[in-house]
């Protein structure tokens, strides 16, 4: 085993994902304690240029036509071969649709422990954020090679970027009998409202309780010339289309005002609102993680508040 920290670089359709830079920044913190290098691992096909702005000491690049876009089987095979040979101290992957598919299979296959939902690195320890952001867990880096899946929020993507292209070392990739293949990408459905260019968003979550109550949020949004968006549970219930969803699988938004009504603020949601100028959170639960990122908050039942708020906004406008 060497003391290097490997980061599996994630990208989608030629665009490096922010989580890749976040992981490089976290890996730097960890490598300072282990004394090893930060090594990016880039798998692709004619994709070498994606390595140019990675803040890594070295990038290992594996090229194969079946790696042009991510599939779990091809990545698993490619990484298993590489990690068996190199045995780095730790391997970071995103807690994402990419990293989440392969970390677990490789952990079992290679016998590595796996630390989930890594948020920051502190003195060589991994600080994870679990239970919807309500609990933090501190774990020492195990003495064996370890997988760490990372969530965003603990580092800024810019911390993992560099103007100095890293040295790139080709690695050989052998793949056979692939069981998973990508047929096509299906573009997101175009909604009636583009929530990514709204100045005011009224965001509703589980706390809205029923489809009928959405009209209250609509009314407030109309008064403020904004639109209604939501966290995942509202979309999963079929109350709003997926084009209105903010967060991990949904949109990232950057409004001047993000008024979160009955949204707890799980990490999967928070990652879509990091560019909002001002977040105001209304929640009945004083421990809701949304208050940790909001500028203003109030612990109150949204249904007790909203009529007063609508009235006060009407009076003021």
């Amino acid at each position: 085993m060497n003391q290097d920290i490997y980061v599996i670089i994630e990208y989608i359709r030629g665009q490096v994902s922010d989580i890749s830079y976040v992981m490089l920044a976290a890996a730097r913190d960890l490598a300072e304690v282990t004394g090893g290098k930060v090594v990016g691992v880039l798998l692709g096909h004619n994709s070498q240029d994606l390595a140019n702005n990675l803040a890594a000491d070295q990038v290992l690049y594996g090229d194969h036509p079946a790696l042009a876009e991510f599939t779990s089987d091809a990545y698993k095979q490619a990484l298993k071969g590489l990690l068996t040979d190199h045995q780095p101290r730790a391997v970071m992957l995103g807690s994402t649709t990419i990293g989440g598919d392969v970390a677990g299979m490789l952990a079992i296959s290679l016998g590595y422990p796996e630390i989930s939902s890594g948020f920051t690195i502190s003195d060589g320890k991994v600080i994870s954020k679990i239970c919807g952001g309500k609990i933090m867990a501190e774990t020492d880096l195990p003495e064996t090679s370890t997988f760490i899946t990372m969530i965003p929020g603990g580092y800024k993507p810019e911390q993992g970027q560099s103007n100095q292209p890293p040295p790139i070392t080709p690695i050989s990739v052998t793949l056979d009998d692939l069981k998973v293949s990508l047929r096509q990408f299906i573009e997101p459905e175009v909604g009636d409202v583009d929530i990514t260019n709204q100045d005011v968003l009224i965001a509703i979550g589980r706390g809205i309780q029923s489809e009928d109550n959405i009209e209250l949020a609509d009314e407030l949004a109309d008064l403020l010339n904004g639109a209604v968006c939501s966290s995942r549970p509202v979309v999963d219930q079929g109350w709003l289309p997926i084009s209105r969803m903010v967060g991990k699988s949904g949109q990232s938004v950057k409004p001047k005002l993000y008024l979160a009504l009955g949204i707890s603020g799980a990490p999967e949601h928070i990652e879509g609102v990091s560019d909002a100028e001002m977040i105001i959170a209304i929640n009945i639960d004083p421990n809701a993680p949304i208050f940790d990122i909001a500028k203003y908050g109030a612990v109150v039942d949204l249904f007790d508040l909203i009529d007063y708020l609508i009235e006060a906004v009407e009076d003021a406008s």
Partner: protein
Amino acid sequence: MTHILVTAKMVPDLVEELEIDDSGTALDMTWLRLIINEFDDHSIEQAILLKEKHGGDVTVIAPDFEGIDDVLFTAAAKGADRLIKLTRDFEEGVNNHALARAYVETIKLQNPDLILTGVQANNDLDGSIGPYLAELLGMSYVGYISGVSLEGDKVVVQKEYPGGLIGEMEVALPAVLGIQASEEPPRYVAVSKVRQVMKTATIEEQEIPDLDPRGGLDVNSMYLPEAAEKAEMLEGDEEEIAAKLVEILKDSGIL
């Protein structure tokens, strides 16, 4: 005939106040209310939708936590054919490595074509169940799934990417899928129907004598997050809070 297996587990209800136990390294389970992992609930729904469309049968398998019988009988009321409960004292704690290994022998006997699991659970700390099962059973795994259709010896899945993008993927069977959301919201079943099912359905019990937690973690400490900058909290009754919010909106040029 397609044999679909679903795993389900109970997780802390995050609406409740969470506390750390005396050891300082785990959640205090004493007063904790447990609910079904919502992604497992979606997995059950997706399995029933597949059964309704393509035929086949659905088995739901779950470790024995408080409340699991209701979850299993509810699954039967929705259309699950077979219910299996893994029994031992899980409430002393079980990591996902141990739980996955506990599932494996029972699952092998079932010989499923397709296994659906929730893509994650809110208390996952040492990885998630789906990829572990896939590797232990020698199957493929694809997660973050919000649509599944069976096409002969493979499934075609809708895999979620950021920004609403979907990757349509083909996965050879047998396979494990990590379900993010079922194609329809989990259906509601009346309590009376669940009670009726309880009279006829049986929960088969499979005892798990030993747990193998290798690969799990030794947690140093757990704690509630301390935000560097917490929100400025607005106090008062609802009317006063509404007035303060309007002042903030005015000051920031939104009104």
